[in-house]
């Protein structure tokens, strides 16, 4: 694509000279004879570069440059001042208000061409850099998303969508540390589906899986944001209830038990029940001792006839 350059200069002879120099180099040139026309053409055409005289009637080059830099459409267009004002203070002013370069008149045509090419190269490279940065940010976001998905998969049991055993044990450590430090209650509920083998044998693994999945859903439904439910193994589930004491956990587990009893499945004709064992946390507990008491209570619930909640 041919780069479009806008020349703003009130001297026809200067414009002619620039037109000859830059036109021969293959650029498309647009001319403006004063500041106002230059500004209007800049907004209309959005050229790649502007060569701007300073001393012009009405709107001078400094004013034009300031207006260009204020407008988001034109702020990134490089402006090269071309002026017979050759004092250092003039050059500093030009660069301070946003000029990319400053060439004094009379100018050497070769030097103008070289400086124009440099500015266009900087502009092109800047654009490429911005584009590359955007791509990089996009890739980073995708990577973060993928990482989050992988982490989620690592923590989750694929059938029920509950936490897996490893992740549960990791979080239980934190729950226990918090309860120990703040002297707050913490309880564990272990749940096991009664006669689950019969369900599997009668309705196949698909039927069994559906029951596991739906029971997982029931647990999730009754869990608060701070609770954590997991498939602990086989048809055994475990739920940690922070800030919940033993009576609270009993009520909670009873609700789950009743909920399970009331569940109906299209393909499974019989009622599925569950047994529940609860333990409450003591500061001297290890995860093993804490879980073991819930497990014992669960065993007792089974031994007492199943479909009940007991605590250790």
């Amino acid at each position, binding site marked *: 694509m041919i780069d479009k350059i806008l020349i703003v200069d009130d001297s026809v002879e*200067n414009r002619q000279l620039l037109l000859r120099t830059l036109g021969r180099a293959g650029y498309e040139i647009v001319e403006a004879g004063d500041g106002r026309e230059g500004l209007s053409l800049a907004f209309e055409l959005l050229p790649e570069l502007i060569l701007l005289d300073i001393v012009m009637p009405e709107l001078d080059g400094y004013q034009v440059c300031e207006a260009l830099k204020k407008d988001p459409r034109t702020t990134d267009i490089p402006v090269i001042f071309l002026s017979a004002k050759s004092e250092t203070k003039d050059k500093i002013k030009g660069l301070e208000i946003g000029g990319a370069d400053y060439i004094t008149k009379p100018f050497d045509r070769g030097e103008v061409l070289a400086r124009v090419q440099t500015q266009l190269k900087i502009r092109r490279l800047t654009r490429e850099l911005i584009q590359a940065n955007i791509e990089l940010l996009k890739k980073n976001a995708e990577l973060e998303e993928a990482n989050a998905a992988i982490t989620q998969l690592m923590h989750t049991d694929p059938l029920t969508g509950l936490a897996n055993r490893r992740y549960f044990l990791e979080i239980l450590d934190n729950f226990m540390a918090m309860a120990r430090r703040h002297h707050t209650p913490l309880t564990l509920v272990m749940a096991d589906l009664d006669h689950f083998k019969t369900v599997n044998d009668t309705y196949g693994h698909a039927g069994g899986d559906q029951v596991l999945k739906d029971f997982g859903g029931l647990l999730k439904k009754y869990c608060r944001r701070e609770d954590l439910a997991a498939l602990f193994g086989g048809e055994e589930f475990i739920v940690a209830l922070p800030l919940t004491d033993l009576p609270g956990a009993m009520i909670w587990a009873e609700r789950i038990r009743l909920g399970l009893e009331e569940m109906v499945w299209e393909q499974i004709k019989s009622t599925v029940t569950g047994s529940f064992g609860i333990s409450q946390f003591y500061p001297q507990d290890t995860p093993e001792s804490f879980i073991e008491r819930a497990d014992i209570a669960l065993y007792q619930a089974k031994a007492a006839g199943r479909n009940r909640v007991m605590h250790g």
Partner: protein
Amino acid sequence: MEKIVVHVDADLEDLIPGYLQNRRQDVDVILQALENLDFETIRILGHTMKGTGGGYGFDAITEMGRTLEAAAKDKNDQAIRQGVAALLDYLRAVDVVLQ
């Protein structure tokens, strides 16, 4: 009158006659402006000559423009007349050689 040889980029060949012709016209405009005490017009013309001369290969015109611009700023009638005379002499003597 001794010729003043100026080497100019051949690429500008077609632009040179017009450029020198415009300077001859500038002489008339400056003299007229001086009669009207219009120093601003002279200053602008001087500034333009200063900015364009060297670009076309006429460094002397840039210098004369600089002198005229300064003289107009100072409203120095005599220096302006001298500047115009020098410009006229130059325009008569200049011999362009393309390179």
